[in-house]
């Protein structure tokens, strides 16, 4: 057992992550007489989608950023920061027996809670193609973060990828006045055919679809060079990106590429905490399993929003409401009938949010070339510089699973602890061994989920 310190701070609920799901949870749980903590590793509230919204509340910025961004402001305004403990710049590195360990200002603290809500959001899926580790190649969220936090745009960037977020970021870049060199769209042609059967249901969310069409229209209007249905991309350069080459021999000169291969749940904390997971074939991501109240396989740990399964901001907020109402009921702050009523209403909301999901998931599932490497030189593990050919050699000796590959190649042993290679390893493993990907174990994730200075870890407060 951990050393029990008498002065460990105790909470009723600790919420990890202050994006839409985390903030919504805090809004639901506050002012019911419960001790609530909201921990987040950024400077400001909002997560990724509402990043820096409090500082972007100006007339000029409102012309650039769309209405749904400012919904974040409305949500943040509902928070009563006097009734909860909000700790920003808190990097959570372990959950153990309902004790949460976090690092803040170079010192680590342990707090205890009766219930934990994990709302860590999504991360960008790995994009294992030749040259993706070159300086100048960045995740498309980088473009969005630099835009929202610092109003920076990089001209002559090339955007490479697929997915709703991909088009959204490009659209924002255009609105901000950026000159975009080219868009290399990697959405496979056959996805349009596959997705067609989900279109009728998706039309129930016609507004969303119209927004998507609006993006495409904008790209055409600004005459941005588009390369569609791309299935081979190579980044080239010596010390940084110099050009991008395509299958037919086309070269595009650029020093900046924003790439996006779709989103996956950011799950290292959930896995370290012991939550059961599953591989979702539809999205080819690892998702966290929960019951209908969002409780994971670990008692009293709830997982909601994109950190459970990527389905967007509306679903995230509704899941926050579901988890919160269950928690309020558990603490006897609301009556059974009230909870039942809420649950019924929220379930209906969830269903409504889901209409567009199948369509988007099928349409934007990456081409297999972008899930599992095709060339020996492709770097699979960025941190340890492990190539596809090394992974293949390891599989020739032992193909028990991705943890064996990790043992023999160092894939997944670096700072990012498998965040940018774990899914790729599963794809490679499944392809080479013929074992169905949903039968494979993922990497074993242990604490700390982020590097922590030894002195800091030795002296936890």
């Amino acid at each position, binding site marked *: 057992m951990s*050393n029990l310190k008498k002065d460990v701070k105790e909470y009723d609920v600790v919420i990890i992550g202050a994006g839409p799901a985390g903030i919504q949870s805090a809004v639901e749980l506050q002012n019911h007489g419960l001790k609530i903590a909201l921990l987040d590793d950024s400077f400001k509230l909002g997560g990724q989608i509402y990043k820096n919204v409090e500082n972007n509340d100006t007339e000029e910025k409102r012309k650039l950023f769309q209405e749904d961004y400012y919904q974040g402001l409305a949500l943040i305004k509902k928070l009563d920061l006097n009734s909860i403990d909000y700790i920003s710049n808190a990097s959570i590195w372990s959950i153990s027996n309902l004790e949460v360990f976090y690092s803040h200002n170079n010192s680590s603290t342990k707090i205890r809670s009766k219930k934990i809500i994990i709302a860590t959001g999504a991360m960008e899926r790995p994009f294992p193609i030749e040259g993706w580790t070159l300086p100048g190649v960045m995740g498309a969220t980088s473009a969005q973060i630099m835009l929202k936090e610092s109003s920076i745009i990089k001209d002559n960037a090339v955007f490479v990828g697929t997915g709703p977020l991909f088009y959204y970021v490009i659209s924002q870049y255009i609105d901000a006045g950026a000159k975009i060199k080219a868009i290399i769209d990697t959405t496979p042609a056959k996805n349009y055919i596959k997705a067609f059967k989900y279109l009728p249901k998706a039309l129930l969310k016609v507004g969303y679809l119209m927004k998507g069409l609006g993006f495409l229209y904008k790209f055409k209007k600004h005459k941005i060079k588009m390369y569609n249905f791309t299935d081979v991309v190579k980044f080239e350069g010596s010390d940084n990106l110099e050009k991008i080459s395509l299958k037919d021999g086309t070269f595009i000169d650029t020093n900046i590429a924003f790439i996006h291969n779709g989103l996956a749940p950011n799950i290292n904390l959930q896995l370290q905490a012991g939550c059961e997971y599953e591989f979702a074939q539809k999205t080819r991501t690892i998702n966290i399993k929960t019951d209908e109240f969002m409780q994971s396989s670990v008692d009293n740990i709830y997982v909601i929003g994109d950190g459970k399964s990527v389905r967007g901001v509306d679903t995230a907020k509704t899941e926050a409401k579901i988890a919160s109402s269950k928690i309020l009921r558990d603490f006897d702050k609301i009556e059974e009938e009230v909870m039942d009523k809420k649950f019924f209403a929220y379930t209906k909301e969830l269903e409504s949010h889901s209409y567009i999901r199948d369509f988007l998931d099928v349409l934007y599932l990456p081409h297999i070339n972008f899930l599992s490497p095709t060339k020996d030189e492709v770097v699979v593990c960025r941190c340890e510089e492990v190539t596809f050919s090394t992974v293949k050699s390891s599989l020739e000796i032992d193909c028990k699973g991705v943890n064996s590959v990790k043992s*023999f190649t160092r894939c997944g042993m670096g*700072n990012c602890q498998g965040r940018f290679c774990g899914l790729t390893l599963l794809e490679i493993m499944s392809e080479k061994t013929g074992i169905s990907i949903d039968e494979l174990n993922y990497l074993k994730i242990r604490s700390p989920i982020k590097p922590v200075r030894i002195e800091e870890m030795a002296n936890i407060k």
Partner: protein
Amino acid sequence: MNKIYDFLIIGGGVTGSSIAYGLSKNSNSSIAIVDAYDNTYRASVGNYGLTWMQSKGYKQPFYARLSEQVSYDWSEFRNELEEKSQIDIEYIKTGGLTFCHTQDEFAKLEKKISNLNSYYQHDSSKTVMLDAKELKKIYPGLGESIVGAAYNKQDGLLNPLHLLKAQLKLAQKQKVEYISHFSTATIDKSNDEYKVTSQDGRIIRAKQLVMAAGLSNMPLAAQLGINVPLEPQKGHILVAQKVPPLDLIPCFNVRQTKSGTLLLGVSNEDVGFDINIDEGIVSNILKKSIKILPMLKDVNLIRSWSSLRIIPQDGKPIYDTIDNTLHVITTHSAITLAPLHANEVSKSILNGKMPDNLKDFSLDRFNEKEIV
């Protein structure tokens, strides 16, 4: 399947693969090795990677001498494995240290060392006690609070994952059939063969069995009426970031791998089959490591591990052959003893019995041995 192997090795860890390599090197018999899943306990991938004699065999002369003997075999074994597999197992005879934080600790350790030293054959095997002044000469950056240490120049370190990889690679090169995702559920003996069935119903038949399945040796051997008393002992190992070479003489608290990674350890906990990380234990390991090497304060910890050691009831290895066909090989020192397993033990398996010098390690000492 209808094939009956000459040998089936149950367990694809360091022990099993040492024997797979050794058997296939010394005979043309048909050999298969089965290994379970990616996420089973696997002491082979959760260990600290030292070749160590200085603390082994306290009041157990045969074990002390065995550990001594094998430490002189390592260089040759390393050369053999590397030449054949082209895998660098990163073995260096660095010497090894056991640090003492108090004079009391020093005195106790000195007594223990003197017992162990009395068993060794060679003077060069003896462990010496060094005071803080002598210690600082060989361990730059030593913390001020350390009073002394035990030092044995025959101890060393290696990369246990590469050792496993090399042995598996060579075994397969030498025609051993490696069958993974095979979790042994039952073993039946009938007439001249053993029938081994996996959890999902696959069957493998063999004339002889080598049980190298770590902690699972206990329940599996029990099916054949053989008592192999083993206890799990939990140990935490912590992995810190890579730093430029420090030329550290390894101890159980901190050592550096060839790739630059710093490993910190260790703990010994009797908590059954629990492999959860205990943050309190982690904190204690870190505090102790900082006392030994203060520069660790500013190094980042990347992850913690815990694994289960396989501890025979009296701590000594188990080497036994029952009925000329069932070979039980279990130890908590599979890394250190790998040369022995690949050579002498493998040859003995081919001879159908364990040699006289390993008599002390038979199951007889546990007083129960019968075949059903």
